[in-house]
């Protein structure tokens, strides 16, 4: 037999209020989940902004690799940390390209943009992969030559990003 306590200042919510809150919470949860989703793209403008975001992500990975290589050549990084950094940059660029290529371009103009961006992403990913492999082998001497295409690629990627923001 339990005694029910009298109403306290920190009162319980009524059942209806609670159900309403639960519904709101569920709706919010769905919205938040949807916010993270990528779906098919209908308009040119949305495709362009996705291209810009991809270019930004790839540029970020390329610049990370450039900085890491520069530091490694100057003897400022441990071999393992360099290898890890380059591996992450390579996988970031690769993921950016995979995600972007999976999006269906809505029209002809988008096709052109896609080709242009892929023309930058593919060599970038390839160069980063080569750098990753060389770093894993501890081959610091090779790094500058493998990193040679990166400055031009990052400039172009940044141009794409600015053009379609």
């Amino acid at each position, binding site marked *: 037999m339990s005694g029910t306590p009298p109403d*306290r200042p*920190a009162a*319980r919510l009524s059942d209806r209020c609670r159900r309403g809150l639960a519904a709101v919470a569920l709706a*919010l949860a769905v*919205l*938040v989940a949807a*916010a*993270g989703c990528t779906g098919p793209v209908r308009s040119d403008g949305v495709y362009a902004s996705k291209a810009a*975001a991809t270019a*930004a*992500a790839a*540029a*970020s990975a390329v*610049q*990370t690799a*450039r*900085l*890491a290589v520069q*530091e490694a050549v*100057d*003897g*400022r*990084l*441990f071999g*393992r*940390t360099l*290898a*890890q*950094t380059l*591996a*992450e940059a390579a996988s*970031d660029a690769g993921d950016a390209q995979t995600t972007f290529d999976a999006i269906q371009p809505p029209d002809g103009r988008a096709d052109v943009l896609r080709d242009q961006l892929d023309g930058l992403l593919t060599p970038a990913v390839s160069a980063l992969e080569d750098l990753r492999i060389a770093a*894993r082998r501890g081959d610091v001497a090779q790094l500058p030559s493998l990193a040679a295409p990166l400055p031009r690629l*990052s400039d172009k990627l*940044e141009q794409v990003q600015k053009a379609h*923001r």
Partner: protein
Amino acid sequence: MRKLLEIALGILTAIGGFVDIGDLVASTETGARFGLGLAWVLLVGVVGIVIYAEMAGRVASVSGRAVFDLVRERLGAGAGLLNLAASFFITLLTLAAEIGGVALSLQLATSVNYLLFVPVVGFLVWLVCWRVRFELMDNAVGLLGLALIVVAVAVWRAHPDWGAMLHSATHPVVPTTESHAAYWYFAIALLGSAMTPYEVFFFSSGAVEQRWTRSDLLVNRLNVYIGFPLGGLLALALMVAAALVLEPLGIDPSHLSQAALPTSLVLGRLGLALALLGFFACTFGASLETALSCGYSIAQYFGWQWGKFVKPAQAPRFQLAVLVSIALGVGLVLTTLDPVQITEYAIVLSAAALPLTYLPLLIVANDPAYLGGKVNSRLSNAIASLFLVVLVLASVATIPLMIASKAGGG
């Protein structure tokens, strides 16, 4: 003399223990994306945590009870349980993020896949919680965490344009590459990273563990008023380092490796080694704190015997709660969800849940039944209440901003 050493140790531990994976991720990312445009949020966060941590320490010292212990008494069983559920979930998420952070630090140093480290880290965290004396644990990780000072040194040695930096910090501008929604979303995330809820549970429970009394009130205040702001300076150093090196290059950091690059650029391998040690120490320390906080909050709600100050067999349900929490945290990281992503969600949800933690604390700190003559002064109440209003606003704005900015991606 001995008292002086004690105070110094307390302050140093507070500095070294301030930064955790949330601060690491939030400060580095906001520095790289917004320059110093969000530095003011760090200032606000540090002031907030200083005010409330002092309250938590005072409550524990004078009443001998920890904050969560008193939450149920003040809010009632139902509201207290809701508070427990939310706080526990967020602290658990943070625990997973911290364990992930330790594993990532080890991965960065050894290039071995972080997933392999996760179970080992989980076991080590549990072992330290189980066996190592509270003071020793607290002091050791706090002092090791001081290695992060290297980031501040790197910023200093980089000879930045201090005038320009001060100007951009005091005249925040949203960069053209970012949306306003993203700016405010990251403001909330940064606030959540500085004012983590678990800090209050841990700080007050720790005060009870160490048997603080009224005579320790001064030490408490010194630790908090000096140690925490200096610790906040370390978080600021991370932000500045990212703003100086990563932002001009357009690097958007999503890995710990990118957070270390500015320090190694300026200070070379020695700087890198200290930064890695600092990353490891602060995430490991925070893993211990969050694991214990998970145990503290559950045990204190149900009134079970808790604490490391008794033998484990005398606080079995508390120890079990800690053990299960660590296991759950390890499990979450082993799902291969990116620990940096887990961290981002943890700090944003922390920000949304801040009023839940701080309102009961404010209520308790004003109750003469617990604090006698040491209740809040009118001034501290005014400031604390103002903060609470800000926290409620931030809390309400969190989900809409998360949607509007696509969780910071847009």
